[in-house]
């Protein structure tokens, strides 16, 4: 990934992250605002509903008050108290309830027993504890003759004029028709969850059934004004919460997998006078409109964000190109410089840091070029000096005997002929030897200057090493004048060690190393030739047990014309290094403090076995 791509990615990510953060913040804020508004709306509706509920409660109370205040009922109560016979009024509650449009009405005698019941006429004679309640209105679960029970909004009132008091307990049923009469805003659904009740005997107060005895949630018991509530099971957690805690609970309920099919629901527990939750009223307001608006805004936000990101990418492309172009030019120029093209120049367009960098770069390449030329000139002079020094040194040694021999010959002319002949012969022999020595010196310099091009072949390293060993093992054993001959050891791996090399050049290089090793052991020793295959290379080692090398010697050993020998030209190891380098190999020297040196040649392994 280049700089431009990195810059592009960085800019794009930065802008995208910024846009996404803004979009997320906006959406979250919008959602919060909508939810707040939704909650306020729900709270308003719930408040309206509660007012209406209280209004209905007041209506019930007023109806019961009206009945209790009527002359007919007061006369009835007086008669009941006076005569003690309530039987004639067995059906009175039905008539009164019908007139007052009440669903429930019971006349309760001074003894607390029902005299007449509109909802359950046969219940006369059974106690009605609710008659003693002093609250304006209260909720109560009323048992019905069919074994079921109904929830009602009740009011209990004493009938004035009769002592002890005869009471009326009247109420209206909290059922679907009650819910249908309640004012509901569009999208608002009011439903009622009512337990079946414990169906106690008529003598007990069902409202005393503790809430802990509530049956498990039954979705079929959640009814709205129009019938069973759709997806009633989704209301379970909310209703159970209200049933258990006795406190209103609100939550967003998702009726289906679609978000728009969700409602903001509030569960209002309807409690008896004793605090027992008798039913739960749920007011749910559809969030469909809000969700649709949210989705619309979200779609716009996504569109704006996508457009922004696209625009950012385009801008990033332009900015990245503008920013990276000089740097890219610098990089390319640096590559060219690295490749040796020191004449490279970069344009200097700006005055900023990049422009300064370009100017510095151009200055640097100009300096480098200048210094290289100076260095080349200096090196060239140094080389010539070194060459001249060497040549002078090498040539001076044979020239001095030649001069002496010639001078001897000149002086010998004065000698008698027989002596002159003797001197002459001796001098000509010396002259021949020194001239041969000069030829040798010149040949070596010629060889160094004319290194042949390798003719590569596939050979096995064992073969090359074996050839060297066979050539020099006998020589070493016989020609060495010391009593202790040089012993050759061979440590060659039996594995194939293919090489793609010029066998003659490699042989010359190894021979050179072997001869050096032999020279390093004037008192005899062991010369070890070893070869081992590595992963991708073949390692050849030439070790001796001679005096070894100093670190300085090791460092300068491959420098041309450097030699530790008295009569060496200093070109042998340079030639070896040149041969090895021509075969893409390396050569190194290891010297042990205890003596001995090892030359390590590493050559690439050939893919073809010999």
């Amino acid at each position, binding site marked *: 990934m280049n700089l431009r791509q990195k810059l592009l990615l960085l800019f794009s990510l930065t802008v995208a992250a910024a846009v996404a953060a803004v979009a997320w913040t906006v959406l979250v804020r919008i959602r919060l605002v909508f939810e707040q508004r939704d909650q306020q709306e729900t709270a308003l509706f719930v408040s309206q509903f509660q007012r209406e509920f209280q209004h209905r409660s007041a209506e019930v109370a007023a109806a019961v008050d009206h009945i209790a205040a009527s002359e007919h009922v007061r006369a009835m109560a007086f008669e009941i108290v006076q005569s003690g016979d309530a039987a004639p009024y067995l059906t009175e509650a039905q008539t009164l309830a019908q007139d007052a449009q009440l669903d429930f009405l019971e006349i309760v005698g001074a003894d607390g027993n029902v005299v007449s019941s509109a909802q359950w*006429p046969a*219940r006369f004679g059974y106690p009605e504890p609710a008659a003693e309640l002093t609250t304006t209105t209260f909720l109560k679960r009323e048992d019905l003759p069919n074994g079921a029970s109904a929830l009602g909004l009740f009011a209990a009132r004493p009938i004035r004029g009769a002592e002890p008091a005869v009471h009326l307990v009247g109420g209206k049923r909290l059922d679907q028709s009650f819910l249908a009469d309640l004012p509901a805003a569009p999208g608002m659904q009011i439903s009622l969850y009512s337990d079946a009740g414990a169906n106690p005997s*008529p003598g007990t107060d069902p409202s005393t059934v503790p809430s802990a005895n509530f049956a498990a949630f039954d979705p079929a018991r959640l009814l709205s004004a129009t019938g069973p509530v759709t997806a009633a099971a989704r209301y379970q957690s909310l209703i159970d919460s209200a049933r258990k805690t006795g406190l209103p609970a609100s939550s967003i309920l998702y009726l289906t997998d679609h978000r728009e099919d969700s409602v903001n629901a509030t569960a209002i527990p309807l409690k008896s006078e004793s605090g027992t939750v008798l039913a739960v009223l749920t007011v749910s307001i559809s969030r469909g409109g809000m969700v649709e608006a949210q989705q619309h805004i979200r779609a716009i936000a996504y569109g704006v964000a996508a457009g922004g990101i696209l625009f950012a990418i385009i801008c990033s492309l332009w900015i990245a190109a503008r920013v990276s172009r000089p740097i890219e030019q610098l990089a390319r120029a640096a590559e060219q410089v690295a490749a040796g093209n020191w004449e490279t120049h970069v344009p200097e367009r700006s005055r900023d840091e990049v422009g300064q960098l370009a100017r510095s770069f151009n200055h640097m390449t100009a300096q480098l070029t200048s210094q290289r030329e100076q260095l080349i000139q200096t090196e060239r002079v140094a080389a010539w000096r070194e060459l001249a020094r060497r040549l002078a040194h090498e040539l001076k040694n044979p020239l001095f005997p030649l001069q002496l021999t010639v001078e001897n010959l000149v002086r010998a002319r004065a000698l008698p002929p027989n002596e002159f002949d003797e001197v002459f012969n001796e001098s000509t022999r010396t002259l021949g030897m020194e001239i041969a020595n000069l030829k040798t010196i010149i040949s070596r310099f010629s060889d160094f200057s004319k290194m042949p091009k390798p003719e590569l072949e596939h050979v096995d390293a064992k073969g090359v090493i074996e050839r060297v060993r066979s050539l020099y093992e006998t020589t070493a054993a016989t020609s060495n004048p010391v009593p202790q001959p040089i012993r050759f050891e061979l440590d060659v791996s039996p594995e194939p060690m293919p090489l793609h090399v010029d066998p003659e050049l490699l042989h010359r290089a190894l021979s050179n190393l072997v001869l050096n090793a032999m020279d390093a052991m004037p008192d005899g020793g062991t010369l070890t030739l070893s070869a081992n295959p590595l992963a991708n290379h073949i390692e050849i080692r030439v070790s001796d047990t001679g005096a070894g090398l100093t670190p300085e010697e090791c460092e300068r050993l491959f420098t041309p014309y450097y030699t530790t020998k008295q009569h060496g030209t200093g070109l042998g190891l340079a030639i070896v290094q040149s041969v090895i380098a021509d075969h893409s190999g390396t050569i190194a020297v290891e010297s042990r403090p205890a003596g001995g040196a090892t030359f390590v040649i590493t050559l690439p392994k050939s893919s073809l076995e010999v």
Partner: protein
Amino acid sequence: MLRQVVISCLIALAVLPAAARTRPHYGGTLRIEVEGDPWKVPDGIAWSLVHDGLTRMDSNGTAIPALAVRWETQNDNHRWQFWLRPNVQFHSGWPLKPSTVVLSLSGSCRADAGCPWTTVHAVGTSIVFTSDSPMPNLPALLSGNGYLIGQAESEEGKALPGSVGTGPFHFVGLQNGAETFEANEGSWQGRPFVDKIEIFSHKSIHDQWLDLSVGRADIVEVPAEQLRVAQQQHLTLLTSPPVTLLALAVADSSLLSNPNIRGAIALAVDRSALSNVIFQKQGEVTASLLPSALTGYSFLFPIERDLNKAHEMRGGLATPALTLAADNSATMQLAAQRLALNLHEAGFNVQVANAATAQHKDLALIQLTLASSQPQSSLESMLRSVGVSTPVIENTPAGLYKTEHEFLETHTLIPLLYLPRAYAVSGRVRDLRLSASGWPLLADVSLQDAQ
């Protein structure tokens, strides 16, 4: 002397109008309103207008001749022979023949499984009943509405609707919304006083009383529970002794086959609440089949409610929901609901249903009518009406008690109350009397404003 003559004349003048007021007149239309169906079998008011039985009951509870002029029992009450009244015609003009009577009685047998005889056949102008078991009460039983004689087939052998009899009135049809009956001029009992009787059926008690108050009805029903109100409204009432037994019939079915369960039900019912409140103290609480006035031993059957014992007898046995069927009238439904409430306290789950529509009845609140004032025949009639065909042979109080006790021990029928039957009549109705069963004897009625 003159003074005495004048006084005598004045007394005579005073008495003559009174005598004129009490002497019945022929003519007029008697309007009756009823809550139920006048043709309801067997207690519909129309049956006794149109039909006669072989016998009828007098005010003392004794069977007296009707279509049969005399009867004899043979073979220790195993065989009875009834001689038909001669020269009696059906309303169709068809003479009363023994074969027609046999056919009518056989139809009654098919309709009512409680026939006391095994065979019935005609022998000359007589009808002969035979049975494997003695029939000591057959004449009394034959006076019941279940055994009225009607012409079942026409001359051509076609089936007749069952409204053709020999009674004091013949059925004309439905006129102006009323079942209309006209006086049978050729009635063997003599022509009734009124020319026509119109029976308006399915009228609520409230409407009946309203029509009575405005002069649109002459005889209306007064349920027992409304008697007090009727008295408060100063209606002219005609009330029978307690003749209707309100009882709880308990099915001896799988659910209630355990006699202890049935006994628990009998102990759980609260008769006093029914009597004192629902029936406004007009009933006579009873645990016996026959009223105390007839037998004198009713007190031997305990009427008190014993909820603890009921629980004990029930023994914690779980019973499924029981269905208590009752007539659809408000009072009967209310009584049934009260009984359901009583039973609920004893651990039973009882649902009240309409008897006409209930698919299954574990319990039924029924009304049985006392057939006569003669205890032996009344007991047998009552037992037969609940499916017990064993004849009541014993005529002594001890024997009757034993029979009754043995039956009630099964707890398949739990007597609750004896209720009177009552009617409110307008001022133009004269000489209306009630039979021993509490039914109005309309053949004797005359109208004050009749010509």
